């Protein structure tokens, strides 16, 4: 049985502790507590228990916050433009955050389609289908030009990865869309998982601007297809 002359005050003590009372109500409760031994005891116990419960919990470290955010399902209505998703001023932060599996598959699929499409164009251009064309081009390389050495920036590879895993992306290529034949983007040798989000986005941007033709010399790994217009008939 409560000895308090105003039992309703007991209900308000947690609100007083958490600052949920307006000034008038807080003053009324405090004035009552000053004259009521039971409420004063209750308030002291509540403050001690709250302190004990809070003291037993450590703050969530920043690294764990980042891990939680990385696992969150992305909203379906999220903006997809690079200017909204990728913050160039926090590229280092974006690099530490891995791109989701969907993004990596998109890049891998895009490169694969380009490779197949490039080879098709190459074959067509070499007249294997009876259509005269230019000199053969490698199907895999996508060209992004570096206007000057000063504007070209090499993004360092993730520590521990071979240097060949790094990607050189030209500021000019990223900022000013041009015909893909005028730009050079070396495809990374390492796994797509090793690339940062910025690097992957750079690949995608290059693919978006590719017009289906290339003008670079074929790489040693893919010797040019020789033959004239009548090669198909040999």
């Amino acid at each position, binding site marked *: 049985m409560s000895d308090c002359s105003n039992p309703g005050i*007991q*209900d308000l003590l*947690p*609100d007083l*502790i*958490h*600052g*949920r*009372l*307006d000034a008038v109500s807080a003053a009324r409760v405090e004035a009552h507590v000053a004259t009521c031994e039971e409420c004063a*005891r*209750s308030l002291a*116990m*509540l403050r*001690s*228990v*709250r*302190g*004990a*419960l*809070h*003291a*037993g*919990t*450590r*703050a*969530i470290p920043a690294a*764990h*916050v*980042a*891990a*939680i*955010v990385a*696992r*969150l*399902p992305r*909203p379906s*209505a*999220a*903006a*997809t433009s690079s200017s*909204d*998703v990728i*913050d160039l001023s926090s590229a280092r932060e974006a690099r530490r955050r891995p791109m989701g599996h969907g993004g990596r598959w998109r890049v891998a699929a895009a490169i694969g389609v380009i490779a197949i499409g490039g080879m098709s164009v190459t074959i067509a251009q070499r007249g294997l289908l009876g259509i005269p064309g230019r000199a053969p081009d490698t199907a895999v390389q996508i060209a992004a030009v570096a206007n000057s050495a000063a504007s070209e920036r090499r993004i360092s590879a993730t520590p521990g990865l071979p240097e060949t895993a790094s990607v050189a992306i030209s500021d000019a290529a990223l900022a000013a869309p041009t015909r893909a034949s005028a730009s050079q983007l070396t495809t990374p040798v390492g796994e797509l998982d090793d690339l940062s989000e910025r690097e992957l986005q750079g690949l995608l941007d290059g693919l978006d601007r590719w017009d289906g033709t290339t003008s670079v010399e074929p790489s040693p790994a893919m010797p040019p297809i020789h033959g004239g217009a009548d090669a198909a008939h040999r």
Partner: protein
Amino acid sequence: MTQPDRATETDLDRELIARWTAGDERAATQLVERHATALARFAASLGVREEIDELVQDTFVRAFGALESFKGESSLRTWLFTIERRLVLDRRRSDARRRSEVLIGESDAATGFDSLDKVVAEETEQRLRGAVQRLSPMQRDVFVLRVSEGRSYKEIADILGSTEGAARVHYHNAMRALKEFVDE
């Protein structure tokens, strides 16, 4: 925090949710930072001792996966507490091993190098936490939400799937029991 401040906090959460939905990943970081520690504290209050970080993570994943169902009728934190409590109950139902969580204080022992005052303070805190754990589950949950997290009776009722009247009764019963535990 006065009532107007609580409304401001709710508005901020709504704004961050809207920004997240529009694709701003930084909004998600801010939301997690705002509520993660409270979720960890609530989980510990519910008696969870192992994998609290994972529980907090799962709570956020569930919440963000169902943001379209969050109507804003309660505060975001209330909603998160609701989700987390259900996850805790699911864990207990599916894993008997979780009963080790009722063991209080095994990791709270002070070292021999702590000052006497600190030792006494920590023992007092440990004793109070133990007293809270001795409450019945519903009394404990209501008490923790009311005293540790500052939730109103209405918010508590929403979280626990109960009524304001029942929450008030559980709270006062918890207070009575705690006073007896503390006086032992």
